[in-house]
């Protein structure tokens, strides 16, 4: 067990290196920030001088080696926009995005599990069709669109909730709904299909055969077995959610990682891009490790190793 975790952690290192490398070259290909930094009235000489000062005139490979060297020592460089080390800026933003993403996932699960179960147990019926249509609708609504609609309805017209910004729990409600709805739709479909599969298993019949009530069979026996597929898709959704969070954050002017990353990319702030991607990557990889351990705890048949 301990060795397994150690092994997995060790495996993360090449993956992270791969990520850092991919991102380095991606950002390199996009171009450097000098033009953007100098603004409308810069002269070519200024640009050249700035490049030299930033070490951007060296061959790519040298730049890469230098970069990897400093990353290995935990230094992601300085964000030129903020004039500060990049990593702390990213870490400062992390809680906001995590709150949003976790909120959205929880919401998605709270909606998706009963709906998915409900439509699976009524497969082919009216309820099933209604749930399917709703999930298609939810999937077809981009989250920025939904976000704006929610603001117009709940904040502007009804005045129940604040429009934007972060602060109280009330600020969290709308962005979480906007972000979680699409995920909920996807998880609903998955819960439905896993439950259909599971409900046709022999052990479900055994459970009924004991005289258990339907609710007990469905929610205890069947749902437990849906845990692994549902959790793994939820984990997969997590990195998608961070991508979605970025748009939601803009709509609700939520000061999270997403906005930071978009700005960093469009401002070619390499250090900030790298640091954000790195933090997100570590999170995603850690989650996948945790989920694997969780699976193992639930389903002892899974052989890790």
């Amino acid at each position, binding site marked *: 067990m301990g060795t397994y975790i150690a092994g997995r952690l060790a495996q993360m290192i090449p993956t992270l290196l791969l990520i850092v490398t991919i991102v380095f070259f991606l950002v390199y290909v996009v171009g450097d920030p000098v033009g953007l930094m100098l603004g409308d009235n810069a*002269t070519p000489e200024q640009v050249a001088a700035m490049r030299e000062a930033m070490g951007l005139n060296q061959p790519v490979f040298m730049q890469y080696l230098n970069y990897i060297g400093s990353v290995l020592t935990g230094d992601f460089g300085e964000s030129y926009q903020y004039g500060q080390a990049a990593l702390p800026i990213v870490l400062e933003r992390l809680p906001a995005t995590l709150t949003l993403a976790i909120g959205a996932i929880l919401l998605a699960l709270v909606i998706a599990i009963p709906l998915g179960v409900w439509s699976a147990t009524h497969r082919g019926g009216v309820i099933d069709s209604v749930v399917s249509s709703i999930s298609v609708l939810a999937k077809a609504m981009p989250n920025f669109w939904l976000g704006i609609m929610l603001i117009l309805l709940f904040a502007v017209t009804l005045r129940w909730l*604040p429009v934007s910004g972060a*602060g*109280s729990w009330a600020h969290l409600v709308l962005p979480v709904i906007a972000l979680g709805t699409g995920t909920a739709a996807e998880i609903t479909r998955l819960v439905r299909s896993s439950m259909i599969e599971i409900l046709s298993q022999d052990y479900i019949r055994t459970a009924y055969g004991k005289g258990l009530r339907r609710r007990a069979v469905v929610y205890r026996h069947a749902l437990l077995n849906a845990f692994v597929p549902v959790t793994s898709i939820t984990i997969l959704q997590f990195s998608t959610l961070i991508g979605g969070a970025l748009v939601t954050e803009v*709509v*609700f*002017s*939520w*000061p999270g990682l997403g906005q930071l990353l978009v700005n960093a990319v*469009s401002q070619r702030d390499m250090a900030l891009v790298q640091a954000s991607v790195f933090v997100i990557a570590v999170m995603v990889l850690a989650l996948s490790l945790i989920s694997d351990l969780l699976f193992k705890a639930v389903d002892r048949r899974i052989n890790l190793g």
Partner: protein
Amino acid sequence: GCGGVPGTTSEDAETGADNEPQTLVWAHSVDPRSMDPQDALQTSAERINRNMYSRLFMRDENMEVVPELVTDYEQIDDETWRFTIREDVTFHNGDPLTAADVEFSIDRVINDETLLEYQFFNQIASVEATGDYEVEIVTEGPMPTLLTLLSKSGSDILPSGYIEENGMDAFIDSLIGSGPYQFESWQRDDRITLTKNEDYWGEEPVWNEVEVRTIPENSTRVSELLTGGVDIIADVPPNDWDRVDAEEDISMQFEDTTRTVLLIVRMTEGYVTADQEIRDAIDYAIDQGAITESLFGGHAIPTRTRAPLGVFGANEDLYDDYVYDPEQAAEIVENYGETPSVTLTASRGTYPLDAEVAEMLTQMLEEVGFEVNLEILEGGSFSDVFSEYTNDELYMIGLADGLLDASYSLVHYTEQRAAGQTDYSNETVEELIAEGNRTFDDERRAELYAEAQALVAEDRPHIPLYVQPGAFGVSDTVSWAPRLDDNVIFDDVIPNE
């Protein structure tokens, strides 16, 4: 105003607090990239800095340059100036503001070439504190715009003692100035909070607290205004102007800006736009009036020059004017031989309705026979094209005049600056600008610039479209009128009873 807590509208907040105005909340669309006052070069940063720092000069509401810290000044010769400053000014940390701080601040911006403001200040050769409250500035050659420059962003006076003691990083975290409001906190991409400077040397500041929020999404910003979450918003999107205005307790406030939306035309050999006639045809084909009327409801002003009215040296004859003659344009295109094909590069959302304008331009050009390849780029790539000089025939951009002086706008028509971008060169224009730049006689200087603009308007290295309006939504809880320089002086905002 109020802090945007649910359920508490502005009214609630005020009644609950002895009717004394407490917090002004206002929102704009872009978060400052940096709060280093000499390294920001952004309207959004300037709007805050202007309230946090003092400068030697300032612009009053009529855009006149008037002394701020300076009590007295003289021009010793063409290149040397001496300034005496107030003695009762202290920084937010209590340090007195002296000539040493002025020297430190100006010295920094004229020497550190990594600062974004450096490019505007490099005509200043040196600065020296000649007494506790006396400073001497020497320029390279005659510099008629020095006082203007000293009122511009980047000329904020920084606390030299604090910075020398604690370093620049510490300063960026604490942002100590000497203006009416002092820095409280900055949640990036969310809000900047300022509080009243109780020891301000001037009139007592109006607000106890000012919160500047960044809300990038247009409709969210408007919604905040509608629900009373904020008192003032900048950049109300044109489609919401009527809606906002129709609200009972909110009004729209418009004002010109110095930002002119124009087409940068590539005149480089090999491009169809190297041909003067083609450039003429493009201008003839464009109905600026239709754009300003249908998209901006008449709040944008058509123009034929980059330097809009209000900027020193602007050519008034070219303002609120445009040439539209589709028949002639069609004729030129027909006689051209082949179908002229142009690429029009624009972005979406960088300026209000920019993509829509580009689409209208496309249709207008196509109607007279051009073949148009419309290319709408994401913000980052759009800026890359500009800074890397990779623009094709037409590139649509909004350029502002940060100095409010035509010398700033006209730089683009000098051969050196145009090389690689428009590749424009006109010896007469070159000479006119150069002479203007060293003339101290304001009247003469303005004439020279106006003449240059008239020539440029015919050569068409740029085809100006319109002056972009500043559109603010203002809640009735406050009274305020916007300024030409797009700045927001918090003390100009007066709470209504």
